[in-house]
């Protein structure tokens, strides 16, 4: 009987307010490709972080190649032959491929690096996996797909027995998938196991031998891939019929008059994207990570360069204005609420009042702006945005995620934004506050604001939108009415090629 490469038994892990994993067990056999499926927040990432020693479990047993690990650290796990390839790349960008592959194992001769030998070794590793990469280029110049290949080669050169990949296909385009799968097959033939996360079911069926389906921190099913169909997995992932508790949602806006039109926009991440949003309407764009949803949000707000196409905003007399800079967009009443509020949205160390008036400060023209005026207008806006804080002098970094998002919304209510673009409107916000944000969104739409939501959360877009547009790898692949946008339906649309 062969020893399992990785065995997790009864793993539990909780974060403040969330039970991320409860009694999760997982077995990876040698020379197999094992997929973990689940929707966002099912606990997939937490599980593999624990498996690779990046986080510690609250309880449970981890066994690697039969050895029980009590205090898993990255180091001990790596020494036992488990290598992880995370989404945030772990590389030295200015060193060459050779150096990155061999890293601390560069061959030495007479105490200096033997470059000739090093290159030969690096080349051998590449050839063994049929990876074609220029071993002399600095890693900075590689594409995401090439980086992944390089990391796989490095993992193999470090004698990995199990390679863990966190959404390896997320940021790859369609034609980049095939080489990746070929390398994974090579690994399997060489007896190396692969554990990977994906929520693209077609990929799972293409490459995986075994599958584990997770939902809300528990394993709902696992087994050989032949025991499943895409439909059965999708059902397992979501588990329930998604109730359409969306009675009050259809908009009363004038849908014949578009406010925001995105016309055939291309960039390095977006490919020929067109859509329009009308006053009073909530349109969501969704897709997996790497679909280009977040880029689209920033692009629509004028905060990113496009290679072709046009972004048009219609004013009240239905005249169109092309947008090419963030400032221009602001002057046309386009608000942008980024996903990463802490880094890209708020002045964290400054007061609530400073943050809430930032929109007015940016768009107004009166050169004089006294502290008294600032505080007055902040006090006027704060209640209407339902911000819960002791007072307007509170440092904004001390507020909860939900309240910070309301500060962002308040900022744009202050300038009477006509179009609001949300990138992941409820990222980092607890469930109770999520619903407050949703009703805030609907209130805004009812007051005549055109709302574009870019979100990777299928459940969320199904709940708040009038229309949902599905993207994949920078392309729009489908559109569905909000009332019909169940998670299953969206997943199906996203999977279809």
């Amino acid at each position, binding site marked *: 009987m062969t020893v399992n490469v990785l065995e997790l038994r009864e793993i539990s892990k909780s974060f403040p307010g969330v039970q991320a994993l409860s009694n999760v067990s997982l077995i990876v056999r040698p020379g197999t490709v094992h997929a973990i499926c689940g929707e966002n927040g099912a606990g997939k990432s937490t599980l593999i972080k624990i498996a690779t020693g990046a986080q510690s479990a609250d309880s449970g047993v981890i066994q690697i190649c039969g050895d029980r690990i009590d205090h898993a650290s990255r180091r001990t796990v790596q020494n036992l032959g488990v290598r992880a390839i995370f989404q945030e790349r772990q590389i030295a960008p200015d060193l060459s491929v050779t150096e990155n592959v061999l890293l601390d194992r560069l061959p030495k001769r007479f105490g200096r690096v033997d470059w000739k030998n090093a290159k030969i070794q690096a080349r051998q590793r590449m050839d063994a996996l049929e990876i074609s990469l220029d071993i002399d280029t600095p890693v900075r110049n590689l594409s995401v797909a090439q980086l992944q290949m390089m990391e796989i080669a490095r993992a193999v050169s470090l004698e990995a027995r199990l390679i863990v990949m966190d959404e390896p296909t997320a940021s790859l385009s369609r034609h980049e998938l095939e080489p990746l799968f070929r390398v994974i097959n090579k690994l399997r033939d060489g007896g190396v196991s692969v554990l990977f996360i994906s929520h693209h079911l077609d990929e799972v069926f293409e490459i995986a031998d075994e599958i584990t389906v997770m939902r809300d921190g528990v394993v709902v099913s696992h087994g050989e891939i032949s025991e499943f169909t895409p439909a059965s997995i999708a059902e397992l992932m979501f588990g329930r019929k998604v109730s359409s508790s969306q009675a009050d949602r259809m908009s009363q806006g004038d849908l014949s008059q578009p406010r925001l039109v995105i016309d055939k926009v291309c960039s390095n991440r977006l490919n020929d994207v067109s859509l329009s949003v009308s006053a009073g309407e909530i349109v969501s764009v969704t897709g997996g990570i790497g679909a280009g949803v977040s880029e689209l949000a920033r692009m629509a*707000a004028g905060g990113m360069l496009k290679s072709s196409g046009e972004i048009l905003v219609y004013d009240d007399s239905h005249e169109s204005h092309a947008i090419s800079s*963030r400032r221009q967009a602001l002057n046309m009443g386009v608000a942008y609420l*980024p996903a990463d509020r802490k880094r890209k949205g708020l002045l964290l160390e400054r007061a609530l009042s*400073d943050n809430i008036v930032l929109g007015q400060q*940016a768009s107004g023209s009166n050169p004089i702006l006294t502290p008294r005026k600032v505080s007055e207008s902040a006090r006027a806006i*704060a209640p209407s945005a339902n911000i819960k*804080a002791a007072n307007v002098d*509170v*440092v904004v970094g001390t507020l909860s995620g939900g309240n910070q998002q309301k500060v962002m919304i308040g900022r744009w209510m202050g300038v009477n934004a006509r179009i609001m673009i949300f990138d992941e409107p409820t990222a980092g916000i607890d469930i109770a506050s999520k619903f407050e944000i949703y009703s805030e969104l609907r209130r805004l739409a009812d007051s005549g604001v055109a709302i574009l939501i870019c979100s990777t959360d299928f459940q969320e877009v199904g709940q708040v939108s009038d229309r949902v547009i599905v993207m994949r790898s920078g392309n729009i692949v489908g559109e569905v009415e909000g009332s019909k946008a169940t998670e299953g339906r969206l997943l199906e649309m996203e999977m279809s090629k």
Partner: protein
Amino acid sequence: MNVDNRSPLKQRILRSDGVRFMAPLIVAIIAISLYTNGENGNFLGGDNLKNILLQVSVLGIIAIGQTLLIAAGQLDLSVATLAALAGVIGATRINDGGSELWAVVLVLLICALFGLLWGILVAGLKIPPFILTLGGTSLFASIALRISKSSPVPARERFEWLGRAKVFGVQTPIWYFLIVVVIAAFVMRYTRFGRHVYATGSNEEASYLTGIPTARTKVLCFVISSTLAGFAGLVAMARISTGDPRNGSQLALQAIAAVVLGGGTLAGGRGSPIGTFIGVVLLAVVQSALTFNNVQTFWNDAVFGLVLIFAVVVTAIGDLRRRRFGAKPILASFIRRNEPVRVPSEK
């Protein structure tokens, strides 16, 4: 929840940056002055006070420009040699027979252009200002030496109004310094531009995505700072009627030190003209007190360094407490020890 209200006035004053950063400096200034006066007399005499201000007026004008830059998250190391260059050019123009006013306008224009260049390179090409202006430092020093042929240039006309005349018994450089402080304080506190500067320095990406013209704001800061440096250079030249190409090589670092003393942080988003003014005065009082107390001059730099290190350590401790316990200033904990730590309630 009382969003409609501001926090209580007392709390607001205690927590304001003004009190946090400036009160300790003012206490230090008064303490040093009283001590020195007690030991030697005359320290607090009108003549000495004017002398102290006169000594730092050039540094002060440069430091105000640096305040704007630091508040915007930028930095300009080249202001010292730019000031020297301005003095040399000014003196040379006068000797060539131009009018005083024309010389001043020309110098300010040249300096503004250099500021514009830095601003465009920093904002447009995203070059780190530290490296860029380090390059500028050597460049200006060289040009100044070339123009002056490596020796001080005596100015034939004496620029009375710029460096030596007295208004109400006070030398003009002091007036210029005070006027610059007052205008800068107004601009930073009461204008849209001033708030753009703080927003840009606090979080440039967020400000840009909100629609604040961050690039324009940064460029303007560089232009203003360079122009002020040029003006300071002219004042320095006029005071001694000589354009010295080697004048004031320490000024840039001292100016940055003054800004940091006054509450600025190199990370951006903080710093105020009034704070910088007090920082400059503290540096000057310390310097003068050392002379009065007959401390040997080689200790001057050591004391300067210690004052600066002490100030940033105190600030850092205050920030740490703020981060850990909410916005509770270090001073308040000295005043009322038993006040419970207030965490903003959310419900």
